[in-house]
């Protein structure tokens, strides 16, 4: 792995990694710092790397494939949504 694979440790690159389990729930796989690496001699593809903020171990190394459909979402969990459901109602009158 090249040196460029070490992500900068700042808030901007700080992420939580989740994977979807068989019960369709998101499992928290840890918090770390993310970076994208360019092809190197060892690895001929672009990859997304997440290194743990605790011990620097690699939480994720994922090749960016051309056919993978990435989605950028501004999503929070359903549970979180329900908390907000009523927020706006206090500002109105029936």
């Amino acid at each position, binding site marked *: 792995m090249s040196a460029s694979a070490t992500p900068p440790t700042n808030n901007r690159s700080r992420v939580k990694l989740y994977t979807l389990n068989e019960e369709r729930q998101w499992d928290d796989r840890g918090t770390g710092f993310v970076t994208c690496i360019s092809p190197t001699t060892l690895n001929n593809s672009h990859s997304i790397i997440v290194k743990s903020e605790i011990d620097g171990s690699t939480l994720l190394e994922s090749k960016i494939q051309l056919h993978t459909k990435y989605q950028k979402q501004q999503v929070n969990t359903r549970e*979180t949504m329900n908390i907000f459901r009523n927020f706006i109602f206090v500002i109105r009158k029936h």
Partner: protein
Amino acid sequence: MIVWSEGEKYDLALSFQEKAGCDDIWENICDVQGKDSTTFLTNSTSDSAVYESDDECIESNENYLSTTINLPPVDLTHLRDICDLFLPERVRDATRRDYLARAIESNNYVRKLIELFHMCEDLENTESLQQLYEIIRSIFYLNKSSLFEILFSEEFILDVIGCLEYDPTKQRKHREFLNQKATFKEVIPIGNQELLNKIHQTYRIQYIQDAILPAPSLFEENLLSTMNSFLFFNKVEIVTLLYEDPKFLSQLFSTLKDDQLSDDKRKDLMLFLKEFCVFSQTLQQQNRDNFFQVKHSFNEEYECVVVVAFVGTCNSWNFECYSSDACKSNRFINCSE
């Protein structure tokens, strides 16, 4: 947040602390895949009903599906054809949904549909209005934030709600309700026009979610997840703007402390404060710290109000809350909803 699948069942999500970080990685991915990361709204004024796709779509899609979606012209004779664009077998494929959404975006299609809607309302053409209901509803279920941006814009949102009145199974007067019955109450006057607009928009979207298109099942709720996100981020923005306003919280607390305050008004304020606290707990850490800093500065003077408000947040449905003065006089106001 960036979400993708690897292999058949392995879904991954990266949740970013900062939006900028998300945008960084997103740009990288788009670069590698040869896509334009800034593609969002293309305000094409072209009248052409044919959507010409970009080259990269063909490339990434290996010609598996037609990348050009010909949208029928928006007129009475083509309403059935437009409805048919959204037939289940035609929107099952996620890639086709993307192309359809982009075609709708870039052809001013929503505007044309709304214009046709006005015409049909004038003609009292119920059959066509019900088809328009079906079309607008189907656009919601494409679940694309770029389309929600258009549907929820100040210009269109009431007309969109108008279209949604023509549900063949239960016709309801949503616009009348929103215009006449649901007047806004400002617990504390809000001077910021942008904030007010955001609140009004959010209220209307919330109304759509709760009253017009309530999710009959978890499955359908997922289909409208982007609308949820849209609402969520509107609310984050509202709360952020409120706590950044140097006068808002101080006015809130000094009003609460006022002996002359009516019980009704006090109740409104406490309900508001309660929601505000609940909401703040789920903001991102950074915002939350700021929020509690603001709160802390009021803590000494209005300790009782704040503490009680927090107690209130623990029992979310039925609780009694006190103002600082009310505590002393052993008076309480029931804020149960």
